[in-house]
């Protein structure tokens, strides 16, 4: 059992982290929405943050977060789409259709609406 005092301290740390992580995410979203021009980032070598729908075919990316509702988020998490997972976009159905992605060695089709809520970054580690 944690003593009361200790847990209070922990709490403060928790809330600090929360602010920090949320803050970071927001900044990342800001960056990604402002500079949709991919080349801009490539030139500078900064990690590129975008939603899964914006990725190119065959591109490998790392999941940053999922912005969906409770149920959908849990389902995606259960299927392995959690922060840090590497996703490879396999293809896209025409007319703004769903996406086909490879996660954890198996292929999933995901509706476009949901895929646009999956935030990914492309960094050196997955630039294979």
């Amino acid at each position, binding site marked *: 059992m944690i003593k009361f005092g200790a847990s209070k301290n922990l709490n403060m*740390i928790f809330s600090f982290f929360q602010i920090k*992580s949320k803050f970071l995410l927001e900044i990342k979203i800001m960056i990604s929405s402002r500079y949709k021009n991919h080349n801009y980032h490539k030139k500078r070598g900064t990690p590129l943050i975008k939603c899964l729908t914006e990725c190119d075919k065959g591109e490998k990316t790392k999941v940053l977060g*999922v912005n969906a509702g409770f149920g959908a988020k849990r*389902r995606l998490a*259960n299927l392995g789409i959690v922060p840090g997972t590497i996703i490879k976009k396999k293809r896209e159905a025409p007319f703004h259709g*769903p996406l086909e992605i490879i996660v954890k060695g198996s292929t999933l*089709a995901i*509706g476009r609406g*949901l895929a646009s809520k999956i935030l990914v970054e492309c960094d050196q580690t997955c630039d294979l």
Partner: protein
Amino acid sequence: MSCHPPKKKSNKNNGKYKDIINIALAGNPNVGKSVIFNQLTGLSQTIGNWPGKTVERMEGHLNFLGYQFNIVDLPGIYSLSTYSLEEIVSREYIVSEEVDIIINVIDATNLERNLFFTFQLLELEVPMILAINQMDILRKRKIDLDFKRLEEIFKLPVLPVVAVHGTGVHQLLEEAIELVIFHHPHSHYVEGGKNKHEHLSHDYHLREESKLKIAQERSAQKYFQFPDLSSILSYGKEVELKIKDLLILINEYREYFLQFNYPSRFLAIKILENDEEIINIFDFDDKSKHIIKKAEKYRKELEDLHGEDINTIISSEIYNNIHKIIEKTVLDYNPETIKETLAEKIDHITTHSIWGYVILVLVIVGIYAFTFIVGDFLGGLVEDLFMNLSIPIYATYGEDNFWVKLLWDGAMGGFFGAVGGVLVYVIPFFLIIEILQDSGYLPRAAFLMDRVMHVIGVHGKTIIPMILGFGCNVPACAGCRIMETEREKKISVALTSLVPCAAVMTVVLGLVGRYLGLLWVLFLFIINFSVILLVGRILKKIMPGECTELIMEMHDYRVPNPNVIVKQTYMRSKEFIFKALPIIIILGILLEIMLIFNLLEPINIVLSPITVLWLGLPVVVGVFLIYGILRKELTLVLLAILAASMGVTILELMTPIQMIVFCLIIMLYFPCLATAIIIAKQTSWRYSLSISLSEIVIALLIGGAVYWGYVFFTNFF
């Protein structure tokens, strides 16, 4: 000895078998549970290469090494969290009294995702055997697994299985017997199950003794010491701390929660995860409310700490643990080396943004073309046979003999009509549908059609029951349970019931196809699909709620297994024969009697305002439309009988426009009785009735429109 075992099922034990073992097959979708089930029980559950075939649990039995096994095939699920209805049902079933042992079927080619579910099952602390299936495919990729190591890690039996060949399937049962006898998992892995089999039967009598001592009144779940798996079932230090805290609270009040079969730790995790279902049953007094409150607080703390929601945290931890296990046990694991195979090329072209749709259309046209060509050829042969057989019979007994009319024209005419007019179409049709199912094409169709289906208010998965509906609407409507929400299920059921099934197709091909040409068949189908689109649009408008997004696994293409296909086609055709043929023959006789005594007249006259005035059909078809409610193919058979007994061909009985209108009506006017019943089961009687009524209205409107359009057109141009 005198007291009964605690198991419900064991009461059936009447001394004939020594023991009864209840086994549930659980695992992700499309891993091969039903193949194993069919191998073990000899039953024929639907098998195919797409996720979500089994929608209801199915029970089968077998006797093996002196035990009676009750085996239950469950729908495939991804997790024990509650995303879909199936998951709740499966979860409750697995922890219920009825299951002694779970066989967790795992797709070896997709270990990571499959083990996620295994981890969740482990939390239920039910005796379990891991069956790693599809080892043939894995080994073809030159990858192998370290089974000894896996057993060490999971402290449970882990067995390689190739379900389609039946390899390793019965070893699962041997393992189950051992689990039951010794109540603890054994830890020696014997390569090649055969030795073990002999060893088991040799030792059988020795074991009998020990078994009698300890096992007779036991319940496997009760005495089974679940191995300590805390080393792998750990979700990180912070989460574990919280779980432990909750566990203490739950254990304090454990007697209150005894009605749940779930182990305390599982309850703690699920409450922490905010699982609605568990919280709902848990939320009944102050103490439990206190626990829920506490869990809420913990959840918030954890979420704040990680900046992620709780399910993501726990899922990540599980996947981390799985990754470690995979690194230790998968030999030569290198997903990058898999080169582009033929399957992938086919995959590429069938999901191509242009060719994909071309192929989709070709597939659907191909289904019909194949069926028509084969069916037409065979149908001609059967018809000739009937004609040739008729000549001597008419010659000896006379054409107007009462008994000849009744038995030959009625009964045998019905039989030949059914075989030559219906069966010859139905069998090739089922065959090609099975091939399509087992190849793995269906998810691709769903992928391509997702966008289009959103227009009518559902996501792409609906296309799967709809394509299956080409075979028979009844199982297809049952298959609509793969849709996640009630709303989508309702829409899918309505759309599927409008898909022209094999029976409708025989009528259309046998009438319009044979006498007017395939172009007119196409015309009819275009009308039919426009109706589906229209109904979908309307339903989307009137059904409240949002359309959920598609989440579906796409499995690799596979060469369809000939054994599976032949067997499934045979089973489905057999079912058709036994259900339909007797009805057709009896109705054939009935029709003859009615014709002889002129009983058709009144019914037809009552219906004539609709059939004759509004639709312009010949007066005699009225009664067929009523028969058609029972089975749609009947209408064609009865028409043939009628024509035969009147001594005319169908072409003389009906004009081309009448054929077209007649077929349109048959296509649309009612989902056959069996379909209406299954729709009611899936949704409600009210919904089923309203679908049926609206379809009658639609059919009459469109049939009338076509007829009057034709009249208008011919009179003025």
